[in-house]
């Protein structure tokens, strides 16, 4: 017992030492040995204010909460341990957005399952990545991050700062159902901002997708505003002609009194830094894609080039009909089968763990897709970073691609003509301007907001208007994904900090322990087995533990002391019987043990008349039954001197 306690204490101590000392050291050692420098990155943190962090975005999220309209009440919480915490019911998926900005650590299998389960149950997630660490997760929704750098013809002075155009269908934000927007605006969802490019068959104009119309009118003119699958605001134009397509607040109220609520699709100019591209297996909602001339540079040579060897990856160019996708949203089926095809509403079964049913596949109505959980993939996490979030424009001098003119002349003399998708590398030496302004690559001298009315994000007169719309796009995207069902509803944005390396070596083991605890208590199977196992252990301990002795005197003189060598089995009994017979004969013959031992066996046998007793003595290996032995005993007793 004494040893037991000491042992337990030592084991506990040992476990704590392992968790808090050995494990972090080993982790550090392995990282060092594998050549990966251990980065204590503070990048992309919502709680730091460096240029590389995302504090501006984070504080804007809080501002949205404080605009007085109670349009939405966003709480920002961080996940420090592991997204496995999303399992179980710690958060309500329908009121929660999971946000991973920059993925530096790949997802483990249980983390992937946790996120998958979360979106399956109606949760929304945003995964912003550029290096492709999130591919293990993305591939389960039919999406792949290319990983190579994306270049396009539009960039701000430096080809690394690619400008992309994004669209968000604003109608879809109105979930009040008052005006009955159809929820399927840009029906082919190619992110071109063009809606209703279909011919109108007069019946169901939103479902057939085969021609273009950009008239901005209620196309079928049937006068029924509540017609199924048809909305009145399916136009990409500035309906109220006030010069802004995005003027109205996305609040289900007709702010500009034009009789249309939340009507305009919004277009955003996003500035990115070294983004990558996305490949999708199935049709998805595309919010941003490349121009016809964009490409993903897979071999890292900075230009669109052919693969030079088998080992080299070929660059991925955009085609007019198939551009490089940059921001996509994938609706996720409730049955866990993975992504849903947004054109047909059918499950795609991208989840490799899910067995495709033999019969009919699950199918959702297109108007139902909005109610599903979804996951948004953004090919560049830097659009969240403080530096780009509110960027006006870039003041860097950069080397232009020298033969971008398209004049049919090889301007840069490299043997290629009009290689306007060529982009030169940044010069290794900063320019004079760079030296003057080493900290800030951007010139943020923006225009200012002139309207007295605050916008959705609480910006009033005198607040800056930036050239790029990163901030507006991201906030709108959040709102789009996590729209309050009713006024003043509290919604949670979970920023996953566990995808970054932990900045404090002291917190690392704490997070790691928390992560393991979260996993052990979140997965119902693991939690169940942990609780079950511990219950068994405790029951065992309780049973093994001696209860304190009762001191009430118990008088007892009935304790049994049995003999140790009772002849129990028949073999021993037979042997003892045989010895007893020999003793008896010796006694009858009046011999001493020594004399008897010297006797010939046949002489001894001749002293016995009974054949059964003779057999007992003769056949030394024979074993008798209890009844036989009883009989033999009687016979032995009867032996008398001759």
């Amino acid at each position: 017992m004494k040893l037991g306690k000491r042992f337990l204490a030592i084991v506990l101590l040992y476990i704590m030492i392992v968790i808090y000392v050995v494990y972090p050291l080993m982790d550090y050692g392995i990282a060092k040995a594998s050549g990966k420098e251990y980065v204590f990155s503070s990048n992309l943190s919502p709680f730091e204010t460096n240029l590389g962090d995302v504090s501006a975005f984070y504080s804007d999220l809080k501002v949205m909460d404080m605009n007085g309209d109670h349009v939405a009440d966003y709480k920002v919480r961080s996940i420090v341990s592991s997204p496995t915490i999303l399992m179980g019911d710690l958060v309500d998926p329908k009121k929660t957005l999971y946000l991973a900005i920059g993925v530096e650590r790949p997802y483990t299998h249980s983390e992937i399952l946790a996120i998958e389960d979360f979106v399956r149950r109606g949760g929304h997630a945003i995964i912003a990545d550029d290096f492709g660490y999130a591919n293990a997760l993305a591939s389960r929704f039919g999406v792949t991050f290319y990983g190579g750098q994306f270049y396009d013809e539009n960039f701000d002075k430096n080809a690394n700062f690619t400008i992309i155009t994004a669209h968000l269908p604003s109608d879809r934000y109105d979930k009040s159902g008052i005006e009955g927007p159809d929820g399927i605006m840009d029906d082919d969802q190619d992110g071109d901002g063009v809606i209703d490019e279909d011919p109108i068959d007069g019946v169901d104009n939103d479902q057939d997708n085969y021609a273009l119309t950009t008239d901005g009118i209620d196309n079928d003119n049937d006068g029924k505003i509540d017609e199924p699958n048809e909305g009145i605001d399916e136009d990409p134009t500035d309906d109220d002609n006030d010069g802004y397509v995005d003027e109205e607040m996305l609040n289900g109220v007709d702010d500009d009194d034009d009789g249309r609520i939340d009507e305009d699709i919004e277009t955003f100019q996003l500035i990115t830094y070294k983004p990558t591209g996305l490949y999708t297996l199935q049709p998805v909602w595309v919010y941003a894609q490349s121009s016809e001339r964009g490409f993903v540079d897979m071999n890292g040579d900075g230009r669109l080039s052919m693969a030079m060897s088998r080992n080299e990856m070929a660059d991925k160019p955009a085609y007019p009909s198939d551009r490089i996708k940059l921001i996509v949203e994938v609706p996720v089926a409730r049955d866990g089968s993975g992504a849903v095809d947004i054109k047909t509403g059918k499950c795609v079964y991208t989840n490799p763990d899910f067995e495709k049913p033999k019969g009919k596949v699950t199918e959702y109505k297109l108007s139902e897709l909005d109610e599903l959980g979804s996951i948004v993939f953004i090919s560049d996490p830097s659009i969240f970073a403080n530096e780009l979030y509110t960027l006006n424009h870039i003041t860097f001098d950069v080397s232009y691609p020298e033969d971008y003119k398209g004049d049919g002349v090889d301007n840069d003399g490299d043997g290629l003509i009009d290689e306007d998708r060529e982009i030169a590398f940044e010069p290794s030496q900063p320019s004079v301007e760079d030296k003057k302004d080493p900290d800030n690559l951007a010139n943020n001298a923006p225009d200012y907001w002139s309207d007295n009315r605050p916008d959705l994000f609480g910006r009033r007169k005198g607040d800056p208007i930036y050239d790029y719309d990163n901030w507006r796009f991201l906030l709108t995207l959040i709102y789009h994904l996590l729209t309050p069902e009713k006024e003043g509803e509290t919604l949670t944005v979970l920023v996953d900090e566990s995808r970054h390396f932990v900045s404090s070596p002291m917190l690392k083991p704490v997070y790691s322990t928390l992560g393991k605890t979260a996993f052990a208590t979140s997965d119902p199977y693991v939690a169940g087995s942990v609780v079950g196992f511990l219950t068994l252990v405790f029951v065992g301990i309780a049973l093994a533990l001696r209860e304190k002795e009762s001191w009430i005197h118990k008088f007892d003189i009935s304790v049994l002391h049995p003999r140790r060598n009772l002849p129990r089995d028949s073999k021993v009994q037979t042997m003892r019987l045989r010895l007893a017979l020999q003793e008896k004969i010796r006694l009858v013959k009046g011999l001493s043990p020594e004399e008897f031992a010297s006797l010939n066996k046949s002489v001894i046998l001749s002293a016995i008349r009974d054949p059964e007793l003779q057999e007992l003595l003769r056949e030394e290996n024979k074993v008798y039954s209890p009844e036989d032995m009883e009989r033999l005993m009687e016979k032995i007793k009867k032996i008398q001197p001759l």
Partner: protein
Amino acid sequence: MAEYDFLEEKVPLKIGIRYPETTMLKVLGFLMGLVLMVVTLLITGFSLTGFLLLLIGIILALFGQLLTPYTIFPSEKLPKLNALFLLIGTGLVVAGIAILGANNAELSDPSQLSFGQYLLLTVLGITFVLFIEYNHASLRFDDVLDSATRHSQEVFDVGPVLKNYYKAGSTLMVFIAGATLLLLVFNSILRWAALSANPQFGHSVVLHSVYVMAITLAIVFVPLGIFLLYYFEYMEEKLKKEEEEKRAKETAAIYT
């Protein structure tokens, strides 16, 4: 030797109050069960399954009070019938509370908890402890009386012991309630401290959910547990030695 007959160890199975001295404890135990039920329902609202589990648990615990310690398992280490009822009853009560209070995000988040809610949770915890304690104490004193009458010639007077129990027990319970409240309030302190030290951690989900309570308990009780293990190991020995030394000096002069 007829006069030294063997003791009949088996207790017959009977239902009823065995010793009137412990009736008060039985009533208190049952009462605490009811209070526990009311407090739980006040906090969580009504759900049929949880309510039924709680109710059945309380009734089973009460029923165990009225049984004799009848041996149903062959081993002495396994519980007797009345203790078994108490164990099952307690299990059902825990299960009922587990179902009633599941997914209670509001009460898990120290940033949203008021002092009043902390008090309510403390009352819940203490009521549960009292429910276990009174029920068990009643069985325990019953057993003391039982074996005293079976094995000893003299009637054992449990009165002074019970009086001492109520007195010392109540005092201790006040401390326990205070400690529980402190432990719960410590959740808020922990969150606040983390927020100022490391906002990333301070804003984390774990510090705004049930995990913060687990962290608090771990912070307080893991070192305490390790300390206690050593305490029992070494301090006891030391105390024993000291006592023996002192006694050796004093025994000589016992009749003075």
